[in-house]
């Protein structure tokens, strides 16, 4: 890192006076959170003034908000002034146009993680927008998508090229003041992904983004905005991996989805941030706000998530079923092993008539893991004939872990039909012995049983993602038997 805090301050002052400043040497913001931090980020991104104002407003609101304590998770207080809010890879100054221009070390890291980049993805027909330490360094298939009129780019690029779309939809699903971490993200977000699917367009390929945290002590604040215009369809895949590290890291992303009339968005996540070691040291704090707005009639938003990583997961991908006949779905597998804690679930807010929602949640607890399902089904007065089906299953491995269920149901319209099923089970010795007697190793037997338990969720994932998810469960449960 070049430059002292003093230098950066001077630089920031300079930059702010100039309005825009592109030639900045610093690749990492010094730790701390104040107006200057936002100006630094905004200047780095060459952002228009309205966006900086938006950030500043968010910071102001955030300062006035108390840190939420209601989740069933425990962690030491976070020092928000000790976090660096912006880090970019060294080679980010000029964005590479092809793989040849990408830092070979980056590629090496991807290879180690087994992330198939361009060639593999090309074969699989998937475009990748890789976010590495907050800045997109590589985007594929732009041309093909452009031909279909699909916009798929980094958030920063969208701000430059499609400011009217960004300005119109940013914060329209998750307002700045929505919650503590959403406000924080709104203030300091550095990059993320932007997707726009034009009217009547079926996105010609699955869109995929791999997120990764790499720089020491830098929080990751991604911002994703997906807009599916009338009658369009898109399937979006988000996968995360993170390398070994021993310091807690804060990850507070915001994802906003907007589905207009008859549009459908399918959003799939495999989340594998570093969970900390077996003694509970280190690991990512994953405090994410994800919400989809079924704004148009007959629209549909489907969330599928496989959460195996992070020391703490605090995440409720939700649907606001505003349009009449709109559909919301939530399929989730959350696994906690060792000392991991997860408090996850969904909110289905029924506003429109004949709206339907489905919630399938599978929680797996092993080691000393604590797993909570927290879900809200709200049927507003206006939601005539709304229906919800909720199924919430927990699987326990060993006797030191925990599973908790917090279902909230609020019904203001008597025509609503709500079903809720819940179960808690343990992997039985009988099942394990049966499989081992057939010649299956103990760990493989556990994987088989766990994958069977998760089947209803995995079948919602795109094929290759499902395979990845199964492998991930296996890796995450290593050492959980016996």
């Amino acid at each position, binding site marked *: 890192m070049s430059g002292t805090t003093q230098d950066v301050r001077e630089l920031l002052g300079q930059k702010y006076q100039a309005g825009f400043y592109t030639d900045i040497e610093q690749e990492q913001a010094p730790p701390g959170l104040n107006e200057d931090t936002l100006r630094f980020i905004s200047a780095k991104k060459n952002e228009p003034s309205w966006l900086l104002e938006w950030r500043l407003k968010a910071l102001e609101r955030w300062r006035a908000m108390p840190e939420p304590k209601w989740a069933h998770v425990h962690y030491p207080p976070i020092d928000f002034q000790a976090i660096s809010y912006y880090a970019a890879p060294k080679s980010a100054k000029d964005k590479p146009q092809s793989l040849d221009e990408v830092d070979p070390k980056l590629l090496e890291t991807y290879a180690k993680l087994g992330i198939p980049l361009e060639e593999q993805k090309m074969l699989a027909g998937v475009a990748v927008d890789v976010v590495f330490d907050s800045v997109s360094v590589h985007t594929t298939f732009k041309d093909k998508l452009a031909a279909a009129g699909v916009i798929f780019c980094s958030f920063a690029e969208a701000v430059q090229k499609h400011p009217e779309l960004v300005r119109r939809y940013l914060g329209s699903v998750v307002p700045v003041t929505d919650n503590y971490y959403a406000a924080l993200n709104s203030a300091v977000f550095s990059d993320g992904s932007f997707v726009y699917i034009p009217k009547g367009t079926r996105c010609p390929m699955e869109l995929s983004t791999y997120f990764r945290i790499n720089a020491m002590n830098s929080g990751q604040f991604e911002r994703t905005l997906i807009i599916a215009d009338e009658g369009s369809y898109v399937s979006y895949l988000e996968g995360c991996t993170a390398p070994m590290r021993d310091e807690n890291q804060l990850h507070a992303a915001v994802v906003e989805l907007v589905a207009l009339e008859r549009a459908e968005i399918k959003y799939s996540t495999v989340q594998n941030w570093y969970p900390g070691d077996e003694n509970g040291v280190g690991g990512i704090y994953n405090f994410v706000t994800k919400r989809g707005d079924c704004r148009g009639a007959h629209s549909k938003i489907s969330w599928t998530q496989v959460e195996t990583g992070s020391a703490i997961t605090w995440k409720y991908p939700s649907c606001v079923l505003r349009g009449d006949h709109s559909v919301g779905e939530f399929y989730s597998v959350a696994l906690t092993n060792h000392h991991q804690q997860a408090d996850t679930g969904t909110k289905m807010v029924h506003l429109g008539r004949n709206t339907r929602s489905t919630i399938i949640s599978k929680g797996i607890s092993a080691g000393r893991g604590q797993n909570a399902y927290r879900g809200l089904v709200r049927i507003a007065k206006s939601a005539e004939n709304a229906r919800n089906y909720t199924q919430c299953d927990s699987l326990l491995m060993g006797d030191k872990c925990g599973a908790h269920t917090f279902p909230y149901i609020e019904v203001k319209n008597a025509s609503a039909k709500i079903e809720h099923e819940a179960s808690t089970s343990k992997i*039985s*010795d*009988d*099942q394990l*012995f*049966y*499989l*081992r*007697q*057939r*010649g*299956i*190793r*103990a760990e*493989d*037997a556990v994987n*088989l*049983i766990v*994958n*069977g*338990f*998760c*089947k*209803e969720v995995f079948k919602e994932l795109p094929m290759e993602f499902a395979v990845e998810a199964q492998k991930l469960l296996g890796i995450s449960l290593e050492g959980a038997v016996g």
Partner: protein
Amino acid sequence: MLKIENLHVEVAGKPVLRGIDLTVAPGEVHAIMGPNGSGKSTLAHVIAGREGYEVTQGSVKFNGKELLALEPEARAAEGVFLAFQYPVEIPGVNNVYMLKAALNGIRKYRGLPELGAAEFLGFIKAKAKAVGLKDSLLNRPVNQGFSGGEKKRNEIFQMSVLEPLLAILDETDSGLDIDALKAVAEGVNLMRSPGRSFVVVTHYQRLLDYIVPDYVHVLAQGRIVKSGPRELALELEARGYDWLVEAAA
């Protein structure tokens, strides 16, 4: 093939097997009979490696190897198969998928290449047909929603796929009507060969009408109290177990 010597087993501190000696040569079929609570199922489970049993003395050798030192999956890979009295249901786990994992686990242990999906599917379809297992059951979750007869038939089907050297049938006849019993026995008889041995654990002689054993052993109070040829089973049917149990006490 199988050589059990002076096997003593306790469950929760209570002796259940009290000095079992049993030798099974390749190709032989041995029936283990006896009243309820005599230790028949314990013997089957101890050979297969189930936890919860404490072996206090003795050995169980399989082709010269000490089975008691091996994990259950290693015993399976050595060629030991247990057909369960109560096959457990495993929700969400496809029957075929489970068997493929099992067969490939065993092949890996033996240093053989794993079978691919297409190759495996062809192989099991033929096996299913041979034991009369409905195709529709192949892709159902393991034993889930199976009738009692279907579960037992599934056990025999799995045995035919895994091709063990020693198959232990634990009360495979329990809960079966005569047609199902015949079908299961037929599946077993198809697999009889000079290199493969069977230990048939049963309470009733009825099964032995269809799976004809070379030897019959009577287990009572944790000991083999009488061994004999096939005719012993018929005698037991006529006279019951009491005379032997009394003699052993």
